[in-house]
């Protein structure tokens, strides 16, 4: 009864093209964002911040990035981990070599560097398609991982090969508690997510989707594949690079290239598949799901009072994770976002069955 658009007339082109055309959606999103900024800090503790909220938000940005490339433009990529590493190390080097730089600029620079690298590795996509491209992007993953492990300049000649960031402050305010970090990451996420939502609604987004649905047909109606594919690679890598920098600076604090290995790429890919390809909402749902499942699986045996060794737990975690993924693919191949859409459709008709 509450969720119904009856009586909401679109009287101008502007309202027709609104980002959330249904008033209830609009209010819900505004309320959610306000709650995230103002409500959550009232009750959240350190564990909730560092183990749940911050990882989910940062990985959501990465998932949005990959979703732009894979979900919207149809170019399957397994190199997200590598591009995250580019972001993290670019941010580290800028912060190290120009310590006065504003931290927001550092993260944007990270995104830009990842974008350049992404463009370079996106070039083969003009010729290679489908799974061939997926394997080709693995070249980016392994090459970048190797480069950050071996080229000493990137890690500032650290003998252990791991790097650590110092104090992070924004306009003189230190970002040192989990609460502040959360607000900072949240601001980044909201801005980037809204930007992505608008991008995919516009001309560029339609171009990407046309390429995804059938690239030759798109080419024939006048969409330049070069333009579309490379812009998708650029935007996607930018998001992933920013996510990588945030992950390194605000989640890890110190890291080695192993933090961005191929498993990270798979993790981000799982997020968008489980969340839903080609939806921004799905990126958030998928990220939340992938972060929550291991925590849940870790807690479960001890809560049930079953004593298990760590090795057994990690093995069971692997098994359950794999099984969950297969289960979700079978039940809803179009992801959690699709479930959400179905629920909304049901709500509109409620209480009538049709």
């Amino acid at each position, binding site marked *: 009864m509450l969720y119904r658009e009856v009586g909401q007339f679109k009287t101008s082109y502007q309202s027709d093209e609104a980002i959330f055309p249904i008033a209830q959606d609009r209010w819900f999103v505004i309320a959610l964002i306000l709650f995230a900024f103002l409500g959550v800090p009232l009750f959240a503790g350190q564990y909730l911040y560092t183990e749940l909220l911050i990882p989910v938000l940062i990985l959501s940005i990465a998932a949005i990035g990959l979703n732009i490339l*894979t979900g919207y433009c149809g170019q*399957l990529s397994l190199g997200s981990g590598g591009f995250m590493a580019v972001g993290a190390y670019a941010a580290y080097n800028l912060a190290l070599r120009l310590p006065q730089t504003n931290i927001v600029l550092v993260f944007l620079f990270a995104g830009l560097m990842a974008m350049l690298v992404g463009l370079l590795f996106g070039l*083969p996509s003009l*010729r*290679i*398609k*489908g*799974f*061939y491209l*997926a*394997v*080709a992007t*693995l*070249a980016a993953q*392994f*090459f970048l*991982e*190797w480069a950050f*492990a*071996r*080229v*000493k*300049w990137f890690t500032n000649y650290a003998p252990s*090969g791991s790097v650590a960031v110092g104090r992070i402050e924004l306009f003189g305010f230190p970002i040192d508690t989990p609460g502040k970090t959360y607000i900072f990451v949240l601001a980044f996420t909201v801005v980037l997510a809204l930007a992505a939502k608008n991008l995919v609604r516009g001309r560029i987004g339609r171009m990407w989707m046309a390429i995804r649905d*059938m690239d*030759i*047909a798109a080419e*024939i109606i006048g969409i330049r594949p070069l333009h579309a594919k490379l812009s998708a690679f650029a935007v996607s890598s930018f998001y992933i690079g920013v996510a990588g920098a945030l992950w390194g600076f605000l989640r890890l604090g110190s890291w080695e290239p192993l933090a961005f290995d*191929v498993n990270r790429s*798979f993790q981000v*890919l*799982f997020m968008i*598949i489980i969340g839903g*390809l080609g939806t921004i909402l799905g990126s958030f749902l998928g990220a939340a799901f992938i972060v929550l499942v291991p925590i849940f699986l870790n807690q479960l045996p001890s809560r049930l009072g079953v004593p298990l060794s760590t*090795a*057994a737990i*990690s*093995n*069971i*975690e*692997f*098994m*359950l*994770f*794999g*099984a*969950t*993924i*297969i289960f979700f*693919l*079978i039940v809803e*191949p179009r992801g959690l976002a699709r479930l959400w859409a179905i629920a909304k459709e049901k709500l509109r008709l409620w209480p009538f069955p049709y």
Partner: protein
Amino acid sequence: MLGPVIETLIGGLLTGVLYALVALGFVLIFKASGVFNFAQGAMVLFAALSLARLSEFMPLLLALALSIAIMIALAYAIELLVLRHLINQEGIILFMATLGIAYFLEGFGQALWGSDIYKIDLGLPTNPIFLFETVFPGGILVDPAELIAAIICAVLVLVLALFFQFTRMGRALRAVADDHQAAQSVGIPLGQIWFMVWAVAGLVALVAGMMWGTKLGVQFSLSLVALKALPVLILGGFTSIPGAIVGGLIIGAGEKLAEVLLAPVLIRTFDLAGGGIENWFAYVLALLFLLVRPQGLFGERIIERV
């Protein structure tokens, strides 16, 4: 100088054959069901683990027979529990499903068989053979186990290539790869076909696991070998069985030579903390190849229509 280079080359070629063995499993499944099977590496690990642990308390041949049975049962379970429910889904969904299978098998294998390093003793000769001692000083060192692996691999490839080309079943498999729905509607039993293909891929995984297991010991890192098989695969083309072999040889030889010849140069020029370019060289090589031939060396020509 020439002697060591040739020795590296031969070593690389033989390793390449082992890559090809893993790649072969990929090709089989891709060719016959259009599924990009990421779980092949996990299957290699699982097969090798079963064989290694079973052979600890029974004769090797019995363990081998049991492992074969296990791999066939596994194929049946995969068809029953996963693939049957995903008929006519998009390629990426099937690919993700195999990633799920890979995670599951890695966990399951280690939970069932343990996660230490195990040995497989096939009783192969281990003393290195020296060839051409008259031509080069010290001769050229060849590992006989790898030589035997190469022969086994060659035979497997020959049999499989003939099977795909000339039997009724092979034709049915190719039809399924083309279009699930169309194949089903002309009366090809999809379930049976998938079960069979996965069973054969499981057996190939067992052979690969045996060979890699004797070479490296059976351990978790075995499932990473599969990642090395991917560039082999795209180099040769996803759909080509001979391509897997040729790709394997090129990658194997290329990366060993690169490690010996190119890595020192890179280290000197860029002041690196060690080489290890083997990790990415295969991929970059394959990438460059693809720029010239997007369907791989022997892949079916990609014809695109609107």
